[in-house]
């Protein structure tokens, strides 16, 4: 039997999670072992598909597929290059970890109110479907559909908490997401009017530097920045990510915000490198720097643990935007280094932040309250969770060995290569701020007080968080292979701008 080609695998990465979303709705009323078994199979299948697609594309190059035999423009064209399949695999792994965390809760739950809220699983699978849809989309409109579905399922997941704050956060998130998608869609309309196609490869050939195109790209960029919570449009993110259920926070911070950033990257560097200007790139960089400093500062002052981690996400997303001034209008080698650094940061942050959220959730579950100060003396009781938190922190701080360090190193080298010392200072201050808020948590944990009470938590929680954190660390020692897969075929690596 011959190996399945990547092109044949592509549709299954949408079909399988969508099928499980439907199944999840059908067995929604059931509880216990059956749901766990069904979703475990789904998770395993999804990871297997992700691995198969990744290895296939890493080995034999990009693939494409036209759904149902309908090719673009009317049909939905899927395409998978190295970057896309890496993100598919990342999604599979991180979402699997979050799913296991939820299953651990379900298994451990003896009383009804600790159970997973209704509709978690359908929304979870819908979220995964839309993420895969974004990574694999071949045209700007399907990116819009993916973006919108991603936003809706994410908002639904935030609202699952059910509390008043959960609902207000979800509504605020929804408003931001809707506005962002419409700005993006308006840009799409202008692009179609100008070029008569939305397929990414064709547009890349056609796009020229003219005002209407630049207006379209500006609109799309603003919409996507709003959805990626770029400072100062980040106000919706901390409450949404901070108040959601722990595994949901992990999914949102690790993957969902990366979806819109991925589109932005494709737009600027794959589709329209001719139309973007260094000035605009510097502008995005300045906002990114603002995010790094402001997010870090907010995290330093935040009294609640999960909100602290959420502010940290704002700061870490800022690093992604430092990529723009390093890659637009600079030399080939600076742009290549910046691309590698940014992509590595994206992946490392996904692992580290999901690990940190899961570990924080476990710590809060043990302490019974969510304040940083409530963790006083927890070190003796929850060493594993703290260890996972710490490993994740190492990567976020950009200390070696970790994916976060390698990413920071590459960005530093890029800043030096293009002589932009300013960004170097931002990178360093961001690291110091991160160290500040990570060690705030540790300081509390080492307090030796006799009176604090902690409830034991399931062992599975710690293993999930540790696994994710260990991946962020391992990425520091072995970033060569994933980087070469991710960057293969990207125009920016060959000096496309």
């Amino acid at each position: 039997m011959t190996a399945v080609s990547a092109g044949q695998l592509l549709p299954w990465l949408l079909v399988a999670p969508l099928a499980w979303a439907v199944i999840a709705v059908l067995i929604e009323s059931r509880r216990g072992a059956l749901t766990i078994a069904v979703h475990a199979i789904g998770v395993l299948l999804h990871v297997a598909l992700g691995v198969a697609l990744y290895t296939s594309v890493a080995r034999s190059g990009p693939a494409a597929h036209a759904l149902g035999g309908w090719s673009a423009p009317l049909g939905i064209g899927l395409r998978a290059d190295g970057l896309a399949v890496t993100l598919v695999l990342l999604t599979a792994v991180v979402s699997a970890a979050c799913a296991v965390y939820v299953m651990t809760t379900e298994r451990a739950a003896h009383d009804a109110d600790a159970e997973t809220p209704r509709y978690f699983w359908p929304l979870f699978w819908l979220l995964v479907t839309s993420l895969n849809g974004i990574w694999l989309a071949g045209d700007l409109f399907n990116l819009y559909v993916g973006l919108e579905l991603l936003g809706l399922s994410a908002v639904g997941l935030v609202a699952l908490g059910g509390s008043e704050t959960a609902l207000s956060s979800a509504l605020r998130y929804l408003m931001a997401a809707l506005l962002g998608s419409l700005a993006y869609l308006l840009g799409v309309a202008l692009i179609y009017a100008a070029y008569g196609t939305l397929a990414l490869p064709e547009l890349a050939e056609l796009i020229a530097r003219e005002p209407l195109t630049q207006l379209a790209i500006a609109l799309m960029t603003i919409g996507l920045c709003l959805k990626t919570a770029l400072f100062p449009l980040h106000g919706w993110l901390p409450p949404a990510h901070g108040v959601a259920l722990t595994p949901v926070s992990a999914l949102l911070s690790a993957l969902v915000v990366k979806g819109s950033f991925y589109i932005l990257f494709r737009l600027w560097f794959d589709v329209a490198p001719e139309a973007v200007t260094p000035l605009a790139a510097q502008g995005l960089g300045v906002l990114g720097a603002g995010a790094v400093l402001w997010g870090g500062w907010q995290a330093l002052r935040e009294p609640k643990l999960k909100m602290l981690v959420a502010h940290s996400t704002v700061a870490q997303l800022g690093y992604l935007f430092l990529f723009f001034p390093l890659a637009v209008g600079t030399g080939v080698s600076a742009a290549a280094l910046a691309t590698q650094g940014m992509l590595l940061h994206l992946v490392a942050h996904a692992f580290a932040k999901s690990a940190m959220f899961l570990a924080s959730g476990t710590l809060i579950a043990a302490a019974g309250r969510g304040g940083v100060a409530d963790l006083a003396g927890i070190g003796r009781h929850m060493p594993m969770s703290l260890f996972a938190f710490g490993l994740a922190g190492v990567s976020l701080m950009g200390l070696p060995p970790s994916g976060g360090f390698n990413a920071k190193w590459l960005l530093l080298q890029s800043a030096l290569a293009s002589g932009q010392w300013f960004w170097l200072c931002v990178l360093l201050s961001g690291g110091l701020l991160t160290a500040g808020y990570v060690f705030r948590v540790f300081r509390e944990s080492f307090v030796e007080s006799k009176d604090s009470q902690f409830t034991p938590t399931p062992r599975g929680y710690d293993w999930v968080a540790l696994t994710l954190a260990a991946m962020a660390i391992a990425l520091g020692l072995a970033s060569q292979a994933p980087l070469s897969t991710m960057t293969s075929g990207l125009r920016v690596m060959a000096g496309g701008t």
Partner: protein
Amino acid sequence: MNADRLYAYVGVVLFAMAMYAFLTHTHLLRRLLAFNVMGGGTFLILVGLAQDGRGPDPVPQALVLTGIVVAVSATALAIILLRRWFALSRSTALPEDQS
């Protein structure tokens, strides 16, 4: 001026007006309606501008159909959340917008 271009201009006006409403109003239901009007404006631009001077084009029509489905689902979700929020808080605006 042909009809297609007119649609596009009307779309721009609708989008701008609705966006103003979206950003200035605090009542969530009004903002939701504004979102829908903005969506309508975008669809008009999408079809009108694409067909302007080129004649009928099935692609933007198909896109708009998809867009409408997405907008309807978004509206449905928003209404559910809104109702629930109203039931819990007795408020029609987000906490930071309440006077």
